[in-house]
């Protein structure tokens, strides 16, 4: 081989080597960049999957929560119906007592006694409804109250009937102090306690 040919070959070999290096570097950079991009894409994909998992869990929870809420409302409605029924029946039972003089008149005397004790006066006016005006007498009441209280109290029966299904109102003679013991008022005043007691019996363990 001539000197010129060897020189030519050296030039071309060096060029080819350099060319190979240029391409190898480009490929290596590409592989590296692709690898990094792959890591970024994987992170992005993981975020999407995490969102999907969260959404799936939310879908599950939302559905169960809606059912739970619907059933809770229905249960409350049904429970409320039963409690209302019990209150109505209790009120009816109380009103039934009004028609039974044997039970009602002693109860009325007890109501008056309780009110007299509360008002703390020796002379009071008792106001009842028109039906009770016809079946209650002041003297009888005075006797019963004296027995129950252990002291005599002057009872005056008001001729003006009150609007109430039963029970009475006790007032001072001047009307300035009043104790309302009508059955309606009693029912209203005791309603919170009645609801609690009914709830305990009906729904307690």
């Amino acid at each position, binding site marked *: 081989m*001539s000197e*010129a*040919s060897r*020189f030519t070959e050296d*030039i*071309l070999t060096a*060029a*080819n080597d*350099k*060319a*190979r290096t*240029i*391409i190898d570097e*480009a490929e290596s*950079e*590409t592989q590296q960049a*692709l690898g990094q*991009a*792959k890591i970024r*894409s994987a992170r*992005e*994909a*993981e975020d*999407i*999957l995490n969102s*999907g*998992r969260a*959404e*799936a*869990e939310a*879908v*599950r929870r*939302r*559905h*169960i929560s809606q*059912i739970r809420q619907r*059933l809770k409302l*229905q*249960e409350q409605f049904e*429970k409320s119906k*039963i409690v209302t029924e*019990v*209150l109505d*029946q*209790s009120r009816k*039972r*109380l009103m039934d*007592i009004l028609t039974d003089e044997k039970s009602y008149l002693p*109860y009325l005397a*007890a*109501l008056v*006694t*309780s009110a007299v*004790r509360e008002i703390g006066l020796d002379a009071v006016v008792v106001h009842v409804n028109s039906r009770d005006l016809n079946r209650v007498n002041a003297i009888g009441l005075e006797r019963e109250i004296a027995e*129950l209280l252990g002291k005599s109290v002057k009872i005056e029966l008001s001729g003006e009937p009150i609007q109430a299904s039963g029970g009475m109102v006790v007032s001072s003679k001047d009307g300035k102090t009043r104790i309302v013991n009508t059955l309606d008022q*009693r029912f209203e005043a005791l309603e919170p306690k*009645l609801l609690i*007691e009914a709830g305990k*019996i*009906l729904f307690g363990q």
Partner: protein
Amino acid sequence: MSGLETVKVIVEAEKEAAKILADAQIRAGEIRTRLDSLIEEQREETIRAARKEATAMVVNAQSEAITEGQLFEKDARSKMREALGRASARKHLAVEKLVSILLELQV
């Protein structure tokens, strides 16, 4: 080979070497240019697969939630019926208690 011919041969070799290097630079440029689209393709494919999987998760969850909800509702309704049945059976007791409270007086 004369001196002139030798110089010609070397000049030709240099030209060829320059062409080899220029081609290599072009090829490297093409490789780098292709990189962006490769990255984008790879990203799109990964994201597409992830979205598909995420959508499937939600669809499955909806279906599972319906089944789970039915079981939950069945169980809850059964417990509710039981509780309401017990309450209904105790109504008369409650009425008795309430009437006694209403009639109860501190005399």
